[in-house]
C-alpha cells in the first residue's frame, strides 16, 4: 500500500553514540585546558603542587602561594571559558537565525551597542562595575531597538506569514551596528589621552582582572539546555525556512528564541570580556567542518570548543610576553583569521 516499507524496529542508530563520544572527548580537553591555565604563568605552579593546592582551594582557604595563584588563574580561566562558550554558542545561533554560515554574534550590532555603553562609562571615568553595566545596557538597548524595528521579520504577533525570511533583520542590524560604531569613533576622538588606552583595550577585548562570576554560567547553562531541546527544529530551519514551516516547525517562535538567546549570550560575553573577535565566527565554523552541521552535536560541541579556545588564547595572552599581558582579542584574531581563511578556501575547493 505505502511506498515506504513498514517500520521494523525503532532502535536509535549510531549517530547518538558517536555524538556522546565526541562530547566526552571535548569535555576532557576542556579539563586539560583548565589545568594548563592553572599551571602556566609568569610564576609557574609545579605539577606536584596541583592536587594539594586544588584541595585547599576547594576547602575555601587558599593557604600557600600555589593555591593563591591557582585561585586567581582558575578564576580568570572560568571567565574566559564562559565568555568563549557564550560567544561560540551565540555564533551558531546567529548563523542559524540568518541562515548564513558566515554570520557572527556581532553581526546584528550587539557588541557595537555594548561598546557605546562601555566606552561612555570609560569616557566619564566611571568605576569598573559601571563599565560592565554600561556594556550590558548598551547591548540590551540595541537588541530591544532592533527587535522593535525588525519585529515583522521575526514574526512578532501570529501574523499571516509563517516563514519570515526577508533580510530586514540582518540589514537593520548591520545599519544599527554602523551607527553605534560612528558613536564609538566620536567618543574615541574626543576622549582625553589618559583614558584612550583603556577604551582601546576594551574594544579589542581583554580578560585581565576578570574572576569567578556565577551569572554568566547560569545564562550559558540555561541557553545550552533550551537550545538542545530545540536542536532538531533548528536543523530543519537551517535547511530552508519554507521547508521548516511545511515540516511543522513554528518558524517565528524559533527565530524569536534564537534572537533573544544569542543576544543575551553575546551581552553576557561582551560585558565580561569586551568585544573579543572571531571566537563566535571561527569556532562554529570549525565545529561544523569537523562534526557536521547537525545542531544536536554542533551546539554542545561549539560551546565546549569555544570555551576551551578562549581559555587557551587567554593563557597564551598572559604568558607569551610575560610579565606583560596582551589583550586576548589580539590573539583570537591572530589565530582566527588564518584558520578562517583556510576553511573558506577549503569550502570553495569542495563546492567547485
Amino acid at each position, binding site marked *: 500500500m505505502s511506498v*515506504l516499507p513498514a517500520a521494523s524496529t525503532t532502535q536509535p542508530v549510531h549517530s547518538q553514540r558517536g555524538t556522546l563520544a565526541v562530547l566526552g572527548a571535548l569535555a576532557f580537553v576542556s579539563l586539560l585546558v583548565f589545568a594548563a591555565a592553572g599551571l602556566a604563568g609568569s610564576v609557574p605552579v609545579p605539577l606536584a603542587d596541583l592536587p594539594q593546592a586544588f584541595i585547599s582551594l576547594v576547602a575555601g582557604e587558599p593557604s600557600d602561594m600555589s593555591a593563591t595563584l591557582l585561585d586567581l588563574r582558575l578564576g580568570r580561566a572560568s571567565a574566559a571559558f564562559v565568555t568563549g562558550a557564550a560567544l561560540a554558542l551565540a555564533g551558531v545561533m546567529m548563523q542559524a537565525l540568518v541562515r548564513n554560515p558566515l554570520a557572527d554574534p556581532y553581526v546584528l550590532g550587539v557588541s557595537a551597542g555594548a561598546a557605546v555603553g562601555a566606552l561612555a562609562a570609560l569616557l566619564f571615568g566611571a568605576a569598573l562595575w559601571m563599565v560592565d553595566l554600561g556594556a550590558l545596557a548598551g547591548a540590551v538597548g540595541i537588541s530591544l531597538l532592533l527587535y522593535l524595528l525588525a519585529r515583522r521579520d521575526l514574526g512578532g504577533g501570529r501574523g499571516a506569514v509563517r516563514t519570515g525570511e526577508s533580510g530586514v533583520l540582518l540589514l537593520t542590524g548591520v545599519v544599527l551596528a554602523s551607527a553605534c560604531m560612528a558613536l564609538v569613533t566620536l567618543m574615541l576622538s574626543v576622549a582625553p589621552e589618559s583614558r584612550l588606552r583603556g577604551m582601546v583595550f576594551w574594544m579589542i577585548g581583554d580578560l585581565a582582572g576578570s574572576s569567578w562570576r556565577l551569572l554568566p554560567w547560569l545564562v550559558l547553562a540555561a541557553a545550552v539546555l533550551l537550545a538542545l531541546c530545540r536542536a532538531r527544529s533548528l536543523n530543519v530551519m537551517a535547511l530552508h525556512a519554507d*521547508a521548516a514551516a511545511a515540516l511543522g516547525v*513554528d518558524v517565528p517562535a524559533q527565530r524569536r528564541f534564537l534572537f533573544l538567546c544569542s543576544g543575551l549570550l553575546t551581552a553576557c560575553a561582551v560585558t565580561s570580556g569586551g568585544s573579543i573577535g572571531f571566537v563566535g565566527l571561527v569556532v562554529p565554523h570549525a565545529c561544523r567542518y569537523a562534526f557536521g552541521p547537525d545542531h544536536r552535536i554542533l551546539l554542545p560541541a561549539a560551546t565546549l570548543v569555544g570555551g576551551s579556545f578562549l581559555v587557551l588564547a587567554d593563557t597564551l595572552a598572559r604568558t607569551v610576553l610575560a610579565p606583560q599581558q596582551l589583550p586576548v582579542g589580539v590573539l583570537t584574531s591572530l589565530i582566527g583569521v588564518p584558520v578562517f581563511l583556510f576553511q573558506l578556501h577549503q569550502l570553495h575547493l569542495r563546492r567547485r
Partner: protein
Amino acid sequence: MTLPMTPPMISTQDLTLRVDGRLLVERLDWRVHAGESWCVIGPNGAGKSTLLRTVAGLRAPDGGSVALAGRPVGDWALPALARERAYLAQSRGDAFAYRVIETVLMARHPYHADRYWEGSDDHAAAEAALRTLDVAHLAERDVRTLSGGERQRVAIAALLAQDTPLLLLDEPANALDLAHQVAVTELMARLCREGRAVVSVGHDLNLAWSGATHALLLNGDGSWHAGTTRDVMRPELLSACLGHPIAAIAHGARTVFLPDAPAAVTNLAPVRNSQ
C-alpha cells in the same frame, strides 16, 4: 467517483488571492479528493505558487477559506498539519553542508515529538525514498555539491519520506532530465492510485495530460477553470489561459499538445541574410 462519506482532502470556498494588490484568483471553489492528481496550469505570475502556499497553510488567504480534510487550515496544529500535507517549494537555497540523507531524515521531523534521535525506521523510510527517486548513491553527498536535477530529486525524496496523504508540488519537473520527468510523473500517478492526493504545478502540458486526472487552469486575472483533464485541457481553454494558440493532436492513442508554431517562421528571411 468520490467517496461521499470522507471530507475532501482540500476544499476551498470563495478563495481569493492577491499579491501586491493585484487580483490573481477570485472566489475559487475547489475540491480535491483522495486518489486525484491535479495539475495547476497557468501563465507566469498567475498565482499558481501562491495558491499552493495558501493551501499548504504557509500563507493566509486574502479572502474565503481553505480546509484540509474538513478542517480549516489555520486550525491545524503545525506538527499534525505536517503529517497531513507535504509541500515541495520551487527552489531551495542550501546554506549549510547537510548530507543528502540528513535532509531526507529531516522530513521525518513531524513524527518525532517523542524522540531526539532518528530511529532505524526513519532511516529505512529515508533510504527507501532515496531509492525510489534513484538517488540512493548520493546519500552521503553534501547537498550543496549536487546538480540542480539531483537536488530536485532529493527534495522529492524528502517529500516521500514525510509520508503524507496530500502532496503539494511546485514545479516538480523543474531541472529534471526527460527520463526523470517521466519517472516522477509516473510516481505521482502511482501515489494517487494508492489513495493519496497530489496537486502539482507544471508547465509541461503533455506531462500533465499523461499524469494528472484533473486540471485547474488559472488565467491570472481572477478567472479559473477546474475539472477533469478531459473537460478542462481543451485547446481553446488552454490557449486562452496561456495566451498562445495551442493545438491538441491525436497521435495514435495519445493526445499531444503543441504550441502553434508561428507559421511565418519557415517563410521568414534569415535574420542575418544581409551579410
